């Protein structure tokens, strides 16, 4: 796969790689000096590659999480699930393509799957609104949650959205209401729920289907109360300070394990999941299966109590005065 999309932080590396590529087109046998130079460049590139990806900042990871070639929910559905039956519609207004809902099988276990769904090209992205759901998307998700509960199917959710869509129609049809109802429903769902952050975790639109008995995140996915750009433009009046703000917001998988919100991190190939999707699919399949196995057979009351206790524990407070 040729990389079409270059992220800011890897640009120096990519430029050098391009130069090396050009040099390698030349006939170096006639020019041993140049050949030595090329060899040196290759070494230099290796070192740069290592340092580039060794210590990614929050903002770097945000770039990776948004990489157009990053595997999407539908890729996971195709790669790690079998017997996938996509279900459509909220039975009320429409079928929001920004949310995918399916019955599917993972490692022999039947589950329901919900995910945010981005497109892979402009046409798809327009149809799917860049993965930003309208209320009918969350209502479709709720319908499938209820279906899963009714038939005792564990729920797997795949989180990958910049956020719920901020638009006139979305507000008119009750964006806030749909998200709130989804949160309440998911919090009390009487089947195991495993949520996996696979890309962007943008605010309430992510959270609506984005928590459960286990919250797993890919190494370069993010989960945040607000996008770093929006936060920077509010607090600094300067969206350019997004990189700085991204660190402040503690939105990486590692940050969130530290805050007790995320349970585990799935490492990605060097450079991000798009560099070797197959490896990532394998890892996600394994972790999700393990999580489902661990949750299997639990009494639903116990499951719901544990989930509540988990949610209930999130937050840092103090008693300021008597």
């Amino acid at each position, binding site marked *: 796969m040729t990389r079409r999309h270059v992220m800011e932080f890897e640009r120096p590396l990519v430029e050098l790689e391009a130069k090396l590529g050009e040099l390698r087109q030349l006939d170096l046998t006639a020019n041993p000096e140049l050949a030595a130079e090329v060899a040196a460049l290759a070494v230099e590139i290796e070192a740069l590659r290592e340092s580039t990806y060794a210590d990614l900042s929050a903002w770097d990871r945000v770039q990776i999480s948004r990489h157009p070639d990053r595997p999407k929910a539908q890729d996971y559905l195709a790669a790690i699930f079998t017997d996938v039956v996509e279900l459509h519609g909220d039975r009320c207004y429409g079928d929001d393509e920004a949310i995918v809902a399916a019955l599917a099988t993972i490692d022999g276990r039947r589950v329901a799957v919900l995910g945010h769904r981005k497109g892979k090209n402009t046409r798809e992205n327009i149809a799917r609104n860049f993965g930003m759901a309208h209320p009918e998307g969350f209502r479709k998700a709720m319908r499938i949650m209820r279906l899963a509960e009714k038939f005792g199917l564990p729920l797997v959710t795949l989180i990958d959205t910049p956020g719920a869509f*901020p638009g006139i129609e979305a507000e008119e049809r009750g964006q806030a209401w749909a998200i709130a109802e989804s949160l*309440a429903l998911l919090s009390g769902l009487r089947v195991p729920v495993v949520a996996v952050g696979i890309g962007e975790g943008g605010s309430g639109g992510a959270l609506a289907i984005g928590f459960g008995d286990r919250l797993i995140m890919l190494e370069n996915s993010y989960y945040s109360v607000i996008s770093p750009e929006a936060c920077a433009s509010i607090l*600094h009046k300067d969206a350019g300070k997004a990189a700085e703000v991204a660190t*402040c917001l503690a939105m990486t998988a590692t940050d969130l394990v530290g805050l007790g919100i995320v349970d585990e991190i799935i490492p990605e190939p060097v450079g991000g999941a798009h560099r070797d999707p197959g490896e990532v699919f394998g890892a996600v399949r394994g972790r999700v299966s393990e999580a489902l196995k661990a949750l299997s057979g639990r009494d639903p009351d116990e499951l719901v109590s544990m989930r509540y206790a988990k949610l209930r524990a999130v937050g840092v*407070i103090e008693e*300021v005065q008597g």
Partner: protein
Amino acid sequence: MSISDWFKAREARRYTAVNGERVAGDVPDGVWNKCSSCKRIVYEGQLVANLRVCPYCGNHFDLTAFERIDLLADPGSFAEFDAGVGSTDPLGFVAAKPYTVSLESARERSGLTEGVVVGRATIGDHPVVLGAMDFRFIGASMGSAVGEKIARSFEVATSERRAVVLCTASGGARMQEGMLSLMQMAKTSAAARRLAEARLPYISVLTNPTMGGVTASFAVLADVVLAEPGALIGFAGPRVIEQTIKQHLPKGFQSSEYLLEHGMVDEVVVRGQLTARVTTLLGYLAGGGEQA
């Protein structure tokens, strides 16, 4: 959400209310106010007598949490709990200014520890847990402490079999607490659900403004959702929407009346009738109907 915009703008103007400008004057009352809607001068005494509703145009000025509680609770019945619960600065958040400074100045200015006040009370003799958010406190944004107090409110009500009445006003999630703040949406919604499963009533009163993560969680999960006239209520802020869709918003967009028309709230209630309305509703929902 532009929580701190609201907040800063207000700080710069020395207002008590976003929609009512209070100005020192030499009238007997000592102060007079300029209505943000009709721009008329309203004397403080007039305003207090009229529940802080503009006598000229009906504009509902913001209330503080305790003004709201005073309005709703039976006299002398309110007993606050968790008054000392406050947010800390778990992320060491600094942007423009440190979060600790924002917290400190909000506490100083409001006399509150956090953006919501909760307690036990009676309303028309019905035992309730009553809460009111105070927009002066960092836009009553929901961080760990606000989320905790709301969750405890539902829990106290569930275990003591009380109804819950919450008056909301909020810019949304408190971004200075990052994901800890976002997760309060799930936490408060989960607590509201447990109250609902116990078949106890929950009435919410959406006041100006109720936005973002508060609207998209506990605020709208009530059995009956009331709203004050002219309140701004929604998920995304108007500016964010305009920037996203690159067009101007229709007049009245995200107002209480607009949401009523779109099926999202049960009733828009003027402040003068709010307490009576909540009391009547509690009569229906907390009255112990047929066994189901």
